[in-house]
């Protein structure tokens, strides 16, 4: 089955992973800007990173037949430095018109601080002004519920951004209903220990349905599995769910969400028709 991984940090994966993913049926990845595991020394570090995302990483992905799209922002962790964040946010428009850029992301909160919220709001202002899609990182573990509710508050207060142009990522059992009821898309991240499992993601699809629901691996430099989406496909098949439902979650839904970006173009190899549903 063709699938899309709508949230994976390929800059931190080896090329072997691209091959494994291609063999498993991955046809497109969407890569948000994230924390590299260390705090960058300044704004120029982000300029290099944005260049890496929009050129080198895109070319590396295409070499394995996998379309590469990316998102740009300063991540929630480094956003606690407001002065740096403002320099980076000012730089984003330079890169938005480049090939394969979907919008602003993954913005969000980390420890739910005042500075993080300030920078989140300034990212929203940019997205609203430039009519960009938004991909949101919700905090890990104990901070997730509190941070998600704060994020939803801030989105609710921004009438210029249509809720359906926002994906609330890393949702779990205590946050998925809140995000769906607010009218947003949601991403369930299949990441060991700190996030969700394929089984629990399948449970949430059974509970809440497939409308506006995606799954992703968020594969990065930590312990993670770039084939987590195929693991979800396996789990859903093992439970007897039909191919149409599974395909909707892992392929059609990401395409529908991304197609809201006017720059988004994607035609799977071998298809004569553009893959916009």
């Amino acid at each position: 089955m063709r699938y899309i991984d709508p949230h994976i940090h390929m800059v931190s994966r080896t090329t072997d992973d691209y091959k494994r993913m291609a063999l498993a049926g991955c046809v497109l990845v969407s890569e948000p800007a994230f924390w590299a595991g260390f705090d960058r020394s300044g704004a120029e570090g982000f300029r290099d990173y944005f260049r890496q995302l929009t050129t080198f990483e895109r070319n590396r992905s295409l070499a394995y037949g996998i379309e590469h799209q990316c998102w740009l922002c300063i991540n929630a962790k480094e956003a606690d430095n407001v002065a740096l964040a403002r320099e980076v946010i000012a730089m984003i428009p330079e890169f938005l018109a480049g090939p394969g850029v979907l919008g602003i992301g993954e913005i969000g909160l980390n420890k739910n601080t005042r500075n993080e919220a300030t920078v989140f709001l300034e990212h929203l202002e940019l997205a609203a002004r430039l009519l960009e899609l938004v991909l949101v990182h919700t905090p890990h573990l104990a901070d997730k519920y509190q941070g998600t509710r704060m994020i939803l508050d801030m989105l609710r207060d921004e009438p210029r951004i249509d809720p359906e142009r926002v994906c609330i990522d890393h949702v779990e059992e205590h946050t998925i209903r809140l995000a769906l009821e607010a009218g947003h898309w949601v991403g369930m991240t299949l990441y060991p220990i700190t996030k969700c499992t394929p089984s629990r993601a399948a449970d949430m699809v059974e509970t809440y349905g497939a409308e506006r629901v995606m799954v992703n691996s968020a594969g990065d430099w930590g312990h993670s599995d770039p084939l987590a989406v195929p693991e979800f496909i396996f789990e859903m098949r093992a439970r007897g769910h039909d191919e149409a439902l599974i395909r909707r979650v892992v392929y059609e839904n990401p395409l529908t969400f991304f197609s809201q970006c006017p720059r988004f173009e994607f035609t799977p190899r071998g298809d004569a028709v553009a893959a916009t549903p």
Partner: protein
Amino acid sequence: MTHVREAAEVLNRDFLEMRSRILEVAAALDRLDRAPARVGETPDRRLAQLRQAIGALLGPGPGRAETVQRIFSLEYDPNWRESNGFARAR
């Protein structure tokens, strides 16, 4: 439309994994008991969270996973904007 499995089907597939995970938790609790506490140390609040979460498993469903998530979560403050000096909600 999602496929609906009967309870017996779910149990047949998941029993061994559930058994394994319960054993892991049991072994971890035994491990904690074997580890000597420092003299005068105040109880770690995480132990209370663990006990509360385990208790939640015995409660009626559905929603146990969400309940456990909330036990391990910080509370939401509806006045967070005011507390942080942001403008009031529109």
